């Protein structure tokens, strides 16, 4: 069996950034395994700009952002394989992958989980009605239009105000389709304000909040969707149904970390983030298996995906040097106003970066961190929205090593 220091599962923005950082820190025995034919992950189809402002100080398109890391991987000569799918990871870090050349088995000292996330589908949200063609998740439509030169439709309705849905509303409009409206079941948008502005408002596409699709019509191809208003409990209100004739329905209804392989390795998952439970070193509940990027928590900015993966790489270097990393004993607990927080475990003796999302939009609030009733720090938030991940650096000198960390939103 092949022996490798670090196996990186996935050659997207997280995997590439982790590989480059490991190489820079002197780790040479690395192998990136990528399922697709090209490195770059989802960025290959994200041809719009707006990436890289934090990481590179300039705004780039997705392919350019990925290109910066791919160029480094090639220059450094970091080993990678494409067209290869990892089918199993064991708790003792044996990685099994399948390709046209057969089965590859690798015993790794450390495994970096950087598989990214998946889109929620029609089945996941249970839209009733017929099952015609013409219903796509936003990312699938994006792949057809931006990679395969296949137009998905002419008369579109979008369900869900996620960023990719709004970006596809603009993209389809530029390609000559008519996008009638975006409907969002929540009373607030789930994507970023700038995308509402530059993808919807710029093109006169209306956004209806507290609305959802309640019926789908069409035998072969989609012919119409029925949209209803929803009440405070997100239940459709009878009598508010409106029919929209369309041949295409784009779904932008959320992303879920892709953790089938993590489960196979026995990694404990967090029901809130849908990703692994990790400590301040990005180490999962299985020693030597680390996670970062969208497989850990769905990010809104790729810059933070790369930076999280670079931080993972720093921990992997220490793990390789020291043979193991000490178990972190303190839990990070959140109140009902926080959707999730990463990491879930800390030692109290190291600096770390806390990532979290608020459950609903709040104004003039504080994110409060406390241990045993003592306030460690408070971050003032003039405006906090679920669409935007909040990151707070926490200094070890402010922490004690005895009490769990409590995270709350107060206003």
């Amino acid at each position, binding site marked *: 069996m092949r022996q490798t220091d670090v196996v990186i599962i996935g050659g997207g923005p997280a995997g590439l950034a982790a590989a480059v950082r490991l190489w820079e820190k002197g780790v040479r025995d690395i192998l990136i395994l990528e399922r697709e034919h090209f490195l770059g992950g989802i960025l290959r189809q994200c*041809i*719009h*700009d707006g990436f890289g402002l934090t990481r590179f100080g300039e705004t780039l398109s*997705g392919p*350019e952002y990925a*290109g910066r890391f791919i160029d480094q991987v090639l220059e450094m000569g970091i080993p990678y394989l494409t067209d290869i799918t990892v089918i199993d990871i064991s708790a003792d870090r044996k990685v099994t992958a399948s390709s046209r050349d057969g089965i590859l088995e690798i015993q790794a000292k450390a495994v970096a989980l950087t598989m990214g996330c998946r889109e929620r589908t029609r089945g996941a949200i249970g839209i009733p009605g017929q099952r015609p063609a013409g219903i796509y998740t936003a990312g699938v439509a994006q792949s057809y239009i931006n990679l395969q030169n296949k137009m998905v439709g002419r008369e579109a309705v979008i369900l869900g105000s996620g960023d990719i849905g709004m970006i596809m509303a603009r993209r389809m409009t*530029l390609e000559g389709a008519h996008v009638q409206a975006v409907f969002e079941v929540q009373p607030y948008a789930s994507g*970023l*304000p700038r995308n509402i502005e530059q993808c919807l*408002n710029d093109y006169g596409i209306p956004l209806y909040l507290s609305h959802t699709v309640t019926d789908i019509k069409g035998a072969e191809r989609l012919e119409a969707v029925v949209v209803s208003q929803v009440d405070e409990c997100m239940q459709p209100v009878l009598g508010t149904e409106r029919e929209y004739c369309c041949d295409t329905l784009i779904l932008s209804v959320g992303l879920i970390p892709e953790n089938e392989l993590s489960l196979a390795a026995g990694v404990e998952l967090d029901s809130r983030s849908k990703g692994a439970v990790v400590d301040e070193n990005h180490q999962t509940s299985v020693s030597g298996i680390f996670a970062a990027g969208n497989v850990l928590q769905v990010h809104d900015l790729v810059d933070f995906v790369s930076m999280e993966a670079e931080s993972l790489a720093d921990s992997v270097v220490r793990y390789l040097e020291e043979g193991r990393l000490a178990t972190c004993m303190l839990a990070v607990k959140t109140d009902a106003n926080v959707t999730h927080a990463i990491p879930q475990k800390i030692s109290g003796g190291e600096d770390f970066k806390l990532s979290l999302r608020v459950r609903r939009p709040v104004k003039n609030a504080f994110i409060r961190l406390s241990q045993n009733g003592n306030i460690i720090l408070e971050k003032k938030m003039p405006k906090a929205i679920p669409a935007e991940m909040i990151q707070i650096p926490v200094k070890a000198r402010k922490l004690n090593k005895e009490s769990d960390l409590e995270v709350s939103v107060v206003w």
Partner: protein
Amino acid sequence: MVREYTCIMCPLGCGLRTETRQGERGEEILVTGNTCPKGKEYAVQELTDPQRNIATSVLVSGGELPLASVRLTHAIPKDRIFDVMGEIRKRKLTAPVKAKEIVIENVLGLGSDVIATKDIGKI
């Protein structure tokens, strides 16, 4: 005159407010709500001459993929977006294509180049 905008310069998406009034040196634009200088710049630009960058694709023959992604080097007036899309649609490339390669120079005389953002290898 007071107008409100959502800044698109970064993910913060600040709510911007511009107030135009007659000052001692002619018309003055007062911007509030911005967190950084880019926001102020954007608000003034948006009020006087709104501009956008666009990203799309160009057909490629003989490549490992049928399309090369492209974008503009500089923002163009918002009301010229569909004119520029029309120009880009006319263009066809032959593989190999290199990222940063100029696809159309000074498109429609607007002072912005259309550049490739992806390498497309030859098959």
